């Protein structure tokens, strides 16, 4: 085998490796879409109150809120929401609420799957992004930034409106 021929083979292999490596990057982004995003109103801290109203021992950490939306996956592979973050909260976590035997509880989940060609709804009483420790009040009509990270689709940014629950 000539040296020239082996060099050609090597570059062909390298090109193939490169194509495989970048494939998920260009195949994924269009697959996930986010619809009907909204957040609940919430408060950061109590208004500074004078006199006896405010106990000196009162903790002044921020309140919490929840964000809901519908995730749609137009792709042919399942994707997973793996993290969320927003500058308005100390922490943003993926959560699920449930009522079992009349007892309400809530726990963090590691991810939220979105089936291929399907959708997953985050809604009151179930899956939601919990905004923990609000740094600012969230009032009806406010718009807040939210970043979502998916296993395949990567990072997506959106603006979420603060609303009262749809009745």
């Amino acid at each position: 085998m000539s040296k020239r021929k082996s060099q050609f083979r090597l570059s062909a292999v390298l090109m193939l490796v490169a194509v495989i490596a970048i494939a998920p990057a260009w195949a994924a982004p269009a697959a996930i879409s986010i619809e009907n995003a909204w957040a609940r109103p919430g408060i950061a801290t109590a208004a500074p109150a004078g006199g006896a109203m405010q106990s000196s021992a009162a903790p002044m950490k921020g309140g919490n809120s929840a964000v809901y939306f519908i995730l749609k996956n137009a792709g042919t592979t399942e994707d997973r929401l793996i993290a969320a973050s927003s500058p308005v909260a100390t922490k943003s976590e993926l959560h699920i609420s449930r009522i079992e035997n009349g007892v309400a509880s809530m726990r963090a989940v590691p991810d939220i799957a979105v089936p291929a060609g399907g959708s997953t709804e985050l809604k009151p009483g179930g899956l939601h992004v919990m905004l923990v420790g609000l740094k600012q009040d969230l009032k009806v009509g406010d718009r807040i930034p939210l970043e979502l990270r998916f296993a395949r689709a990567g990072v997506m940014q959106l603006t979420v409106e603060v609303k009262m629950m749809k009745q």
Partner: protein
Amino acid sequence: MSRFLSLALAGTFLVACQKPIAWNGQALAKPIQPPELALVDQKDETLRWQNLHDKVMQVNFGYSRCPDICPLALGHIKNAVKALGDKADRVAVVWVTIDPERDTPAYIRKYLALLDDRFIVVTREVTEIDKLAKVFGVHYKRVLYDGNADGYAFQHSAAVYVVDRRGHVRLIHGDTGDLQKIVEDVRHLL
């Protein structure tokens, strides 16, 4: 004597003929009368259970840092009151915070401004809240969990309790989602 007997018989007959109310919620076999407690509301003022008599009450236990289930339940309760139309002012909503440590009166006042200023919130006195929870048969448990910047959350009974105009706990609605069912029961008690 015979007159008394016939009256008594007529009375029994009337009672027997009265159609029993088909409650939607779980009716307590023996209505509970909460004892007088030293409760405090969001205005940081004494709240007397007796002063709420003459109103039908919807009572729910929760905490303001509960981001999902509690505002959902409060939203349902608010709509149940709204659905009563011109009779809405004969109903009181009492929300008992199980987290008075963080749900200070000042904090609650600000929180309520987002939801409904007419709600009455029982707060501040942990021991009295515990007693009230016991009377209602409400269980709650503080749970610490990883990653929560706030440190703790609660597992708690999510039911709506309907209290009649004499202050007796009469009905339990475990499912707050079915608005019409709560409204029907409240109407019977007005």
